[in-house]
């Protein structure tokens, strides 16, 4: 059976999912973009991976439109006037979202929803405003059917932010992903606690280290897709990844890896990125004629290439001959120190490379800790995370994370699964979040062990939707399939649970 026929006959794919799959298949027949033989050999071995981005990048991977501009000026191409009230505002966004391309075909950044909608919400009767927001969230969940669709709130407490949290909890939807931009000086404890409660029950919002992102990107940064840091009015061209464990298989020793093997693979990935970025900017029509560009909702200078890595833990363990993951990276100080040495090399070499068309960022790419894909299995843990099943205490896990999160301006994060008693003590979690962000953690996600909506590696799925797929039924959310793969292959939902600790005296 041909691949196309496979897609067409697959009963678990929705019409839209078939369409996307067929488009990918069509794209893969082109041979315009060629890379070096060494690159293809590395890809063949699994040392480098293009994340199925497609051979012909006809749009940037992630696009973060300037929605404030949309609300100020409207959009000529879509014939939208600046909104005058909440209904119009929501309607403008719903239409606009359908025309924002991405690697997933769905918009990966929906804007700072609270800030955008707050002036309109405050002019309405609260009950009416909440109803409009409810329909808005329903529209997003049913139309933008992909968990990498992402909205941001904060750092300030707003009426709209509160309503979005209440609705998120009531509606229990996997879409959109949601981030609180958290700044201890600007985010009140009361609002942060409301976010913690919502996070425990719905696996969102996650907490982003606002100060850290502002330092790197300026005030107008976006958290998009799973946890990507990018610039509003810009985005990310491409995201390939080095699969560090597979890379490490070529090395005789840690030193051999660091001095010989690693630089070679870094350069191959840079070569690959340069070619793709040039192609997107110079050949594809996006930066020439797409209304997002011509009307100034994004500008080319604000785009950047994301240099991904995955599987640092397994790489270090292999290089040091550690076979028991529980005694390896994250627990063994030497293995963790090797991880830092490796990241230092990657960071330096990438920052020394002059990247094309990254004008706003000193002509350099930035690093990204890729969260893994459904087919990775147990070989490569997400980014620099400690492998599932080998997690030490939460304290130790945070301490390790804090060493590695600063390397990744275009995104990294870790996820903590909590036991039920934490619902009664959200302030305990807020204290942990505050401490870890102050110590250099970039991005904190959490959820309760018994939720239906859960965070897999960076994205959200419903466990009940995974069950549907298992029964050969369709799931509207195209990411559910990844969730099933990650659950089966990488046991991604079996992460350590932070338990309440019994006190010693009864």
């Amino acid at each position: 059976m041909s691949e196309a026929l496979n897609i067409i006959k697959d009963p678990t794919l929705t019409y839209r999912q078939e369409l996307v799959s067929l488009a990918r298949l069509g794209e893969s027949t082109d041979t315009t973009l060629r890379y070096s033989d060494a690159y293809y050999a590395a890809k063949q071995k699994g040392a480098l991976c293009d994340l199925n981005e497609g051979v012909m990048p006809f749009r940037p991977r992630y696009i973060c439109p300037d929605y404030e501009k949309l609300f100020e000026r409207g959009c000529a191409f879509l014939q939208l006037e600046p909104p005058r009230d909440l209904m119009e505002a929501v309607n403008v966004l719903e239409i606009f979202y359908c025309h924002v391309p991405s690697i997933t075909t769905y918009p990966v950044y929906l804007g700072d929803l609270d800030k955008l909608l707050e002036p309109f919400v405050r002019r309405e009767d609260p009950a009416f405003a909440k109803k409009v927001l409810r329909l808005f969230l329903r529209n997003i969940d049913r139309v933008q059917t992909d968990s990498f669709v992402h909205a941001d709130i904060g750092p300030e407490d707003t009426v709209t932010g509160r309503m979005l949290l209440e609705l998120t909890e009531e509606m229990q939807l996997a879409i959109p992903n949601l981030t609180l931009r958290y700044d201890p000086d600007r985010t009140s404890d009361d609002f942060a606690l409301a976010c913690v409660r919502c996070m425990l029950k719905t696996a969102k919002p996650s907490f982003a280290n606002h100060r850290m992102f502002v330092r790197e990107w300026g005030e107008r940064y976006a958290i998009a897709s799973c946890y990507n840091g990018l610039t509003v009015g810009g985005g990310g061209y491409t995201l390939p990844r080095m699969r560090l464990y597979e890379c490490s298989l070529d090395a005789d020793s840690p030193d051999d890896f660091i001095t010989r093997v690693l630089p070679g693979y870094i350069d191959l990935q840079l070569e690959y990125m340069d070619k793709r970025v040039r192609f997107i900017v110079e050949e594809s029509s996006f930066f020439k004629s797409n209304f997002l560009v011509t009307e100034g909702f994004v500008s080319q200078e604000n785009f950047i290439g994301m240099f991904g890595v995955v599987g640092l833990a397994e790489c270090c363990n292999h290089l040091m001959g550690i076979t028991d993951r529980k005694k390896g990276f994250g627990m063994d100080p030497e293995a963790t120190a090797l991880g830092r040495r490796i990241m230092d090399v990657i960071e330096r070499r990438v920052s020394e490379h002059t990247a094309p068309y990254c004008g706003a960022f000193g002509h350099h790419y930035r690093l990204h800790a890729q969260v893994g894909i459904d087919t990775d299995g147990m070989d490569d843990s997400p980014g620099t995370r400690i492998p599932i099943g080998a997690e030490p205490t939460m304290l130790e896990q945070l301490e390790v994370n804090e060493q590695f999160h600063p390397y990744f301006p275009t995104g990294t994060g870790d996820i903590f699964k909590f036991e039920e008693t934490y619902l009664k003590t959200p302030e305990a979690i807020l204290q942990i979040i505050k401490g870890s962000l102050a110590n250099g953690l970039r991005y904190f996600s959490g959820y309760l062990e018994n939720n239906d909506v859960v965070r897999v590696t960076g994205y959200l799925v419903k466990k009940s939707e995974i069950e549907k797929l298992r029964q050969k039924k369709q799931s509207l959310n195209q990411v559910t399939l990844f969730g099933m793969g990650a659950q089966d292959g990488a046991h991604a939902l079996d992460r350590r649970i932070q338990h309440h600790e019994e006190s010693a005296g009864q």
Partner: protein
Amino acid sequence: MKKAPVNKIIPFSNVDGPGNRTAVFFQGCTFNCLFCHNPETIRLCADCGACVPGCPAGALRVNGLGRVVWDSARCVQCDACIKACPHDASPRVTWMTVEEVMGMIRRTAPYIGGVTASGGECTLRCEFLIDLFTEVKKLGKTCLIDSNGSFDFEADPRILSVCDGVMLDVKAVEPAWNDTLISYPRDLVLRNLDYLIKTGKLAEARTVIFPDRDRENEETVRYTARRIQNSCPYKIIRYRPYGVRERYRKLLGETETGADYAERFARLAREEGAARAYVV
């Protein structure tokens, strides 16, 4: 250098006082409660060596001085030593200096609201606690004591001067029931209850509710609730047989206290004025 026997340190605990706290559990207790669910914390190791042969990981040995020595790196936490111990003790105890305990607390400090000293009975290590809390205070963190009330807080007020509050167990009020359950005079506990309320240092009171002990439960809860009123939370804890010594399980019950039954006493406490009574 002052040292104290530490059974364990839990870096992050959300059940030993408000927020996220580091809990330090000291070995050794003044009470011998029938319902203790970790009786291995009651006494100090007698170096009898009874646990050594049964250790499957080779983590225990008797050294040249006749002392039982525990190798934490080898230990697999199977609890075989605790089950073998005829003295309600544990070989898995580390004598630590204040500076050693502070080593852990300095790591956890960014993530916690404070430190809770528990046990065993931590006030047995009064001098150590005063030094420890003095250091913790320098980090701007709160200090709480988890106590059975066998320390006379009024007679020696130094410890209260460096701690933010005491979480006090009020286990039994009726004298005969107290004698059965705890084997320790109850008057000091009740005096401490009043003194801690008066000084504003009672952070929390707790009472364990036993299955089918209507009269005993009621007397303890009523007395305590009337005293504490709204001055602090009142935790009504369900008895759980897990970990309780077998001979006492027979007396107290093999099943845990039902939630509804415990709720009855929380209601009673609230009726008596302890507005912040709740079941855990």
